[in-house]
């Protein structure tokens, strides 16, 4: 009996100590990790979508609280006029979440382009969503009222063969982006108008 209690105590204390240490390290590195993700993952995706802007979208950004979630919007300007926003959504892929950057033109409400940022899909199959521009290029030019689901679910997007679930995940993220954009449009317009100068 004593031996058993001893085991329980040792394991409990060890786990508690481990939990505390990890919480401390997690808090300590949070900001730095956010910056690194911005620099190495979001920046390339943003550049790919908004290749011809006259400003640096990484600098011109604002945040909007959507329910409990804080969303960061990156603003792209053409000839000094802020006319596009980019933000990140996510959809459920084959193994974990797929992060998707979605760029939208504010004037025409059209998707400029989308780009996968983070994913843990199968290399060679699902990973094509990021590596092969053919699939994501289907989203470009879509209006907000288009159904961005995959064709099997009644939408307009062709899947990548061998990666149905990944395709559906990307579609879901794009649909979420449509929803968020439509819902937050007044706020987005207000914020971007302030950036015109």
């Amino acid at each position, binding site marked *: 009996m004593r031996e058993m209690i*001893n085991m329980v105590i040792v*394991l409990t204390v*060890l786990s508690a100590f481990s939990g505390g240490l*990890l919480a401390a*390290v997690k808090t300590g590195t949070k900001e730095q*990790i956010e910056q*690194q993700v911005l620099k190495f993952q979001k920046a390339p995706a943003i550049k790919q979508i908004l290749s011809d802007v006259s400003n640096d979208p990484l600098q011109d950004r604002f945040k909007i609280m959507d329910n409990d979630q804080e969303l960061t919007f990156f603003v792209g300007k053409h000839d000094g006029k802020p006319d596009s926003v980019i933000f990140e959504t996510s959809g459920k892929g084959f193994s974990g979440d797929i992060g998707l950057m979605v760029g939208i033109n504010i004037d025409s409400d059209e998707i400029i382009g989308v780009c996968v940022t983070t994913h843990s899909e199968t290399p060679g199959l699902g990973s094509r969503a990021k590596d092969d521009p053919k699939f994501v290029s289907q989203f470009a030019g879509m209006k907000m009222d288009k159904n961005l689901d995959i064709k099997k679910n009644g939408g307009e997007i062709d899947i990548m063969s061998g990666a149905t679930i990944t395709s559906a995940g990307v579609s879901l993220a794009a649909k979420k982006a449509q929803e968020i954009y439509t819902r937050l449009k007044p706020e987005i317009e207000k914020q971007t108008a302030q950036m015109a100068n």
Partner: protein
Amino acid sequence: MAQSMVKEFTKGLWAEIPPFRLVLGLCPVLAVTKSVENGIGMGIATTFVLVCSNLLVSLLRSVIPAKVRIAAYIIIIATFVTVVELVMQAYTYPLFLKLGIFIPLIVVNCIVLGRAEAFASKNSPVLSIADGLGMGIGFTLSLGALGAVRESLGNGTILGSPVFGPEFQPFTFMVEAPGAFVCLGLMLCLMNLIGKK
């Protein structure tokens, strides 16, 4: 004391060098040695985990009940691995992305658990640190050496800079999985040849 410390330290560098003599922890050895940088990065991460877990296991060796020792070791090792993962994510993000899943997999690296069970649980903290450091450096050197052979033959570069002339045709086979086995086998063979004399 000093003498036995040196002995424990140096055995990891040659006599018991992990991938070649103990033939342990081959999963990361084969998977991440596509380049010198990856190999050394992985080696350093493993060394940190090895030293910290050896120290803690050794300090707690009289407290941890024998029946739950493996569970306790795993908690300790997993904690340090997560710390390494977060720190790498915060400060060496590109390397973190390249090593990917293999960083969390240090938890199940046989060397780390093997040293905790076979050495640290029976020896003093100072000797355990020496042992962990020796094993870790041996592991790093092995990964670096394997990475150097594979990167130079398979890609024509070492640490990203070309080592052969512009006419060099990369031997792509070497950076793929079968090349890892062949290369490891040849290095083992070479080490046995030298060790025999």
